[in-house]
């Protein structure tokens, strides 16, 4: 196993960690807004790390470019979707949870 393999393993593993954390967050967090927060982290950081790990293994720059493009498009659409869902939740008065330790 070369250094490159190690780096890409590390990157993919941490990407997977973000996805797991995001899923746990979506299941466990109390309201729509905090869930969105957890989900979009998984989308952006998790996928970014996966793309990084896969890019290190790619055999041509063309593949790296396409992977990056996929990441960019997902970033765009996940940010937009998050905004739209949050907005619609806010508009219809989803309860903003104001607990003791979150402001």
């Amino acid at each position: 196993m070369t250094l490159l393999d190690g780096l890409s393993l590390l990157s993919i593993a941490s990407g997977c960690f973000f996805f797991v954390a995001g899923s746990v967050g979506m299941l466990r967090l109390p309201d729509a807004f905090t869930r969105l927060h957890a989900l979009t982290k998984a989308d952006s950081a998790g996928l970014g790390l996966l793309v990084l790990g896969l890019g290190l293994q790619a055999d041509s720059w063309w593949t790296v470019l396409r992977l990056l493009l996929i990441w960019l498009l997902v970033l765009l659409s996940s940010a937009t979707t998050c905004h739209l869902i949050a907005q619609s939740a806010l508009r219809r008065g989803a309860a903003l949870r104001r607990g003791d330790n979150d402001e």
Partner: protein
Amino acid sequence: MRGGRKTADRTENTDEGIRSKAYSHREVSTMSPVLWILDALFCASLLGLAWQTLRTRDLFKAIVLYIVFGLMMAMAWARLDAPDVALVEAAIGAGVTGVLLLSTLGTLSAARGEGSQRGGAFASAVPVAGLVTGLVGCLVGVLAVAVWQLPVESPGLSAAVEARQEESGTSNPVTAVLLNFRAYDTLLELTVLLLAVLGAEVLAGSEAAGSEAAEGGVAAQETAPRQETGPRQETGPRQETGPRQETGTRQGPDAQQERPPAADRDPVLRGFVRLVAPAMIVVAGYVLWIGGEAPGGAFPSGAVLAAMSFLLMLARAEEGPRLSRRGGRWILVAGLIVFWGVGIAMLAAERRFLEYPVPAAKGLVLLIEAVAAVSIAATLVALYRGGRLVRRPRRTVDSEFRS
């Protein structure tokens, strides 16, 4: 992937089918336990999702589950080395069908008022449901037995396809089968799509000839797919306030009475669509072109174009070249016209119907696919709009243009 769409379809609905395909296409002996676990997870989650989709009483939830099911199904196809089917399943099975179902739900709740679609009508249908379940169970059993008796290594016609691959004009066996060797099938598939649009148009036309209620329903549903808890809240009162998309956020809920002009509706969504729509056109072209040598082709490409149109409609960013209704109809049938045209041209050249000459095969396949992709996109959009690609005139500008 050799077997492609045709053979794969047959075994689609059974667990055993998925399993046996996976085994027959890979070197079985070295199947690692990780892959085995992955397959087991796929099967379990597909069955679980299907059950949840059928079981849930909330129609909106059922649709979302169905979309998730479609995505998982696409991943299962990819796992079975059938990326063509996976592409189509993701784009049409999960994407477009999901949008259609959501818009139907939007129209239903707009027409009936809140809450009535929550499965009340189905409560009395329990005996029927039991009967149907029983029948489906029997069918699945028969299919399972049939699949079980198939030889494990079933090459089908892949050797024959491979032998004549050179002559087909493409290096992707699936495209070779769909657009050359068995082009009849694809021709008839396109015909079925067109018939579906005609059916939708006839039904929609008889339902609401000139009624504004239907238009209201269509307008209400357009925001539906983006929303989290469902379009069922989008009922009457909201429609009357018109531009409901953006009232609350920028000025706060107190300022809801002020209506921003339509062009200023969701700036974020509009900006996103502006960025992404051109990219989607490029992707559609890429998918179409790559179909010649790798998974892709007219159907996924058309689905991407249709998805772009849905986005444009959601963002109300439809300013573009305006079509006349007649022009819209031409676009709907263009794919079939070109397909038939090529077929008949072959007859005129003293060949058989749709028998392309080898040197021209690549060009002809690409021509048919390109036009078919546009027609397929138009068909999906027309289905979404109740059978019409172009809406009936509403404003004077439109009717002036049409004159």
